[in-house]
């Protein structure tokens, strides 16, 4: 007789801690905003400041974006979540006006960013292969600040981005995490209203990632609007007001972090069985199967029908465990679901 165990993964409590931290933070935020510019803030809260309609872009026969609609509201942090090659960077580049869509339209602060008239209100942290290495941190920031009409004082940029200690070091001598922070500094130094952060925490260790999150929250607390891209559901969850999930050039889900999580939260079934990998794969409702030592690990949306089938097909089934999928497994389930659907069509 098999034992069915239901247990929460260790991640669960940590995750809710992150959420409550976020809620506390956002309460602080609204307090700050009301204290400073209440009327303007309320006005902008409801209005969209960046919109994309029916965007399409292909590179040769790769479809990078396929009918994407997006609406960034003033004062929010919108996370664009998706795996490698989903089209996140492509979308950001179009909103910045550094690339043109094949079809569809983009509007930022009511204008076409491609015309280059409102770049002074935008800041961007992009994935860069190489930054001029002989210029010092302070010099990079000095130059970029000069492009903007009302930049932050240098000391403030250095402080927000955590660069004060390394301001006199040449870029080429910095560590990966420090380089990331310089790019972040470049994005914020002009004191822009709308920030695009393309995978700001990629390659950072846990501590540096937390630090970057705190820096991003500082911006939101100053009333900035942020569009952030990420591979990680936990990052989107920790920071965002709203999440858009992008996969293969399409938006496949949209909602608050808790909505997305409840949509994505699948189950993971673990068992040892005499069935073959293929036989397990064929059971309806199984999203993916992995062989883990002598056991199988199945990702599913709902556990009960799959468990019933498993027991019916293999009377010798043993070591059965059902767990809530972790955040990242949940995200995978969400995108793989979408992949399976698009294959059927």
């Amino acid at each position, binding site marked *: 007789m098999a034992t069915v165990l239901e247990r929460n993964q260790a991640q669960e409590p940590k995750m809710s801690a992150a959420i409550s931290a976020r809620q506390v933070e956002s309460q602080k935020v609204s307090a700050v905003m009301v204290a400073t510019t209440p009327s303007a803030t309320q006005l902008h809260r409801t209005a969209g400041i960046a919109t994309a309609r029916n965007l399409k872009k292909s590179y040769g026969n790769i479809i990078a974006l396929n009918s994407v609609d997006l609406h960034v509201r003033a004062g929010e942090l919108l996370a664009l979540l998706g795996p490698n090659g989903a089209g996140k960077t492509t979308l950001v580049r179009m909103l910045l006006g550094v690339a043109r869509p094949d079809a569809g339209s983009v509007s930022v602060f009511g204008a076409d960013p491609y015309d280059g008239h409102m770049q002074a209100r935008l800041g961007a942290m992009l994935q860069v292969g*190489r930054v001029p290495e002989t210029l010092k941190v302070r010099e990079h920031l000095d130059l970029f600040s000069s492009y903007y009409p009302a930049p932050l004082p240098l000391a403030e940029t250095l402080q927000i981005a955590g660069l004060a200690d390394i301001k006199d070091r040449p870029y080429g001598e910095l560590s990966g995490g420090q380089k990331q922070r310089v790019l972040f500094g470049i994005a914020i130094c002009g004191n822009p209203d709308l920030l695009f952060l393309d995978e700001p925490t990629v390659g950072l260790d846990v501590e540096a990632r937390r630090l970057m999150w705190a820096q991003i929250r500082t911006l939101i607390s100053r009333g900035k609007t942020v569009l952030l891209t990420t591979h990680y559901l936990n990052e989107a969850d920790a920071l965002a007001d709203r999440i858009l999930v992008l996969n293969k050039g399409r938006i496949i889900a949209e909602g608050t972090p808790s909505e997305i999580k409840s949509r994505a939260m699948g189950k993971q079934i673990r068992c040892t069985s005499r069935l073959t990998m293929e036989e397990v794969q064929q059971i309806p409702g199984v999203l993916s199967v992995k062989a883990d030592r002598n056991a199988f690990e199945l990702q599913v949306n709902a556990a009960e029908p799959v468990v019933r089938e498993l027991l019916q097909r293999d009377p010798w089934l043993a070591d059965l465990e059902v767990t809530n999928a972790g955040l990242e497994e949940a995200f995978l389930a969400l995108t793989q679901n979408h992949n399976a659907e698009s294959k059927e069509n």
Partner: protein
Amino acid sequence: MAATTFPTALAVPRRSLQRSIAIYAKEAKYELLKNLRIPVYAISSVSFPLMFYVLFGVVLGGGNPAERAERATYTLATMGCFGVMAVSLFGFGVSLAIERGQGWLQVKRASPMPVSAYFAAKLFSAVVFSTVIMLLLLTVGTLFGGVHMPIATAARLIGILVAGSIPFCAMGLAIGYFAKPNSAPAVVNLIYLPMSFCSGLWIPLFLLPHGLQVLAKFLPPFHLSQLALNAVGLGENPTPAWEHVEALLAFTLICLGVAAWGYRRDEGKTYG
């Protein structure tokens, strides 16, 4: 649409002339600083022409003092041309290819930087390096090669060669839009070394085979070096100066056309 209610209230004010000038100045300053701190660029772009000048213009070859002085003056014009060319092609072409191909230019374009400031800064850096090279060669030539020319002549020579960096900056621009970051230095070397040889910068044209002498008429370094040689009274052929200027102008326009094509081709992809 909600967003359309925004722009009038929150439109970004136009940049004042003063602020534009400040941006151009800062961009130029940091471009120069950036290049000065790259040892391979700063040292090789100055030391190579200087080394070759000392070798071919001052040390090698015999003759009486008058002949030696003439050779030193002749080489001043041709090696000066060579130095200006190298600085322009590397400073413009290679650095553009790298910054464009590695995404840095995209970061700049996503900012409110006026694109023209970016290119003006590169031109400025090439002009400064060209001037430094010419002053160095002139000093060495005067001290050790017996070069003797009135200040006005020296100023004209330097002026012509420094202005002559423009066609090569245009060529660098075109290369920068087509070459990949890793291959750009090789591409530049493959073009400018043979081109400078065939234009008579290394060995005076009249010592080269007839075929090469004909070919040289189609090469920009030939025209620039002829202008420079005319300025110091050593021009070897009777072509009037304006024909050389025209040839350089045409070359510049062709390069700019190619660059504009590359720029447009790029927009859809790695934009820059």
